[in-house]
């Protein structure tokens, strides 16, 4: 259910921004006394490509992990596509609900360590969830998986298992696997950080392609600043559990408003 606090516009001439597909409202995450997220408010518009940058430990990855339900917020409201994913009051014990499981299906994730299933071929990795979660027929699932493997340039590798593939190839299969679930939101958690330098390009090409050709919402945590600048509609700078600055890439990279953003970019762009 969508919160009905805002009345829907009756006339079309009232220009309103579309409802956000992702909304964090006063979300906190504590690890013991360490506050990873501090009452975060954060929104992403449908179809928007957002890159999150910032020093490690700033809470960027936690945002993705809360969205993917790999972590529970300590407090706050998270909605995805109008449905409540998390609604946590501080101190409350959180259970995995049916609502959470259904909302989660709108989200896919690409991990830093790929996390392919090593005992299954590329094809089997991709068709597993469409068949057993979406209830798709095996023939259809395989056909779509083959298309997706072609899309990521690995049409010839469908029968290879992860140990037979390079890191870059594994990550491309992982992207195809996430896409096979037709997510509305795709999360990338430092998708190239575990790769050898010469393999980064092939993965970035695939992500760039997706960013330019799909209306899927993409949220990426990355240290690839030039890539973030190139593909993002918006870049958000995180530090110490809070968003310190948010804006179009041109502004963040060429004319950052916050001193924290300036020092961070100076440090990472030096080499």
């Amino acid at each position: 259910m969508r919160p009905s606090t805002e009345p829907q516009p009756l006339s079309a001439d009232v220009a309103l921004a579309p409802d956000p597909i992702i909304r964090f409202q006063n979300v906190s995450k504590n690890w013991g006394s360490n506050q990873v997220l501090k009452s975060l408010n954060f929104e992403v518009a449908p179809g928007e490509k957002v890159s999150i940058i910032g020093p490690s430990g700033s809470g960027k990855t936690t945002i993705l992990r809360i969205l993917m339900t790999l972590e529970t917020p300590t407090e706050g409201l998270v909605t995805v596509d109008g449905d409540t994913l998390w609604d946590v009051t501080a101190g409350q014990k959180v259970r995995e609900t049916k609502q959470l499981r259904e909302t989660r299906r709108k989200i896919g994730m690409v991990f830093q360590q790929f996390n392919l299933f090593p005992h299954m071929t590329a094809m089997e990795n991709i068709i597993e969830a469409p068949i057993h979660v979406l209830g798709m027929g095996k023939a259809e699932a395989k056909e779509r998986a083959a298309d997706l493997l072609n899309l990521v340039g690995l049409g010839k590798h469908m029968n290879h298992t992860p140990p037979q593939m390079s890191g870059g190839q594994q990550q491309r299969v992982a992207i195809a696997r996430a896409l096979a679930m037709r997510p509305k939101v795709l999360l990338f958690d430092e998708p190239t950080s575990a790769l050898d330098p010469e393999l980064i390009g092939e993965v970035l090409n695939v992500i760039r392609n997706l960013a330019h050709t799909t209306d899927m919402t993409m949220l990426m945590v990355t240290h690839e600043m030039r890539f973030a600048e190139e593909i993002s509609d918006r870049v958000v700078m995180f530090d110490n559990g809070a968003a310190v600055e948010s804006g179009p890439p041109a502004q963040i990279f060429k004319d950052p408003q916050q001193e924290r953003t300036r020092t961070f970019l100076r440090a990472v762009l030096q080499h």
Partner: protein
Amino acid sequence: MIWDSNFAVSVFPLLLEGLWVTIQITLLGTLLAAVLGLFFAVLRRLAIPVLSPVVSFFVVFVRGTPLLVQAYCAFFVLPAYGVSFDAFTTGVVVIGVNYSAYMAEVYRSGIQGVPSGQWEAATALSLPGVRTWGRIILPQAVRTVVPMLGNYLIQMFKDSAVLSAITVVELMATAQAIGSSNFRYLEPLTMAAMLFLAISYPASRLVNRLERRYAPQH
């Protein structure tokens, strides 16, 4: 006492029959232990209130008491409460349940060895719990512990001699019976030992090879 080859040859077929019973106990017992142990390991990991602690206690209890005591209880005490099976069936169940407690620990280490990223990928794909266990976690967990399970099979093969105490006529009981009825223990016991070795030594070589083959993939 001097080795009597004629006597040895004459009782050898009897010993082979005993060996065959020992092999049957080992295979059936291992099957039971492997299935039950997996079940216990998964139940413990699921952390279900009441049930998981009960399983944990059962595993500790079985591991903390001697196999011989368990065999006696099952064979001599349980019939008083109306639970009564023949010696062979009782033997298989006792040794199978006993080893299931050890194998549960082996599986547990295998399950713990599956990287957390595998669970996370399953969550990210919204795979149902049964599918996550059956298709993602257990195939990887079991694969790495196959050699350890093999070691337990060999150990059970030798331990099954304990079941002679509850009148299971396996290899050891056969050797003992031959000895006591002929007043000659040298030949039957020596040959029984050699038969145990003839199976367990090649089997342990095989397990060594499995260890190399089933090295973790990650």
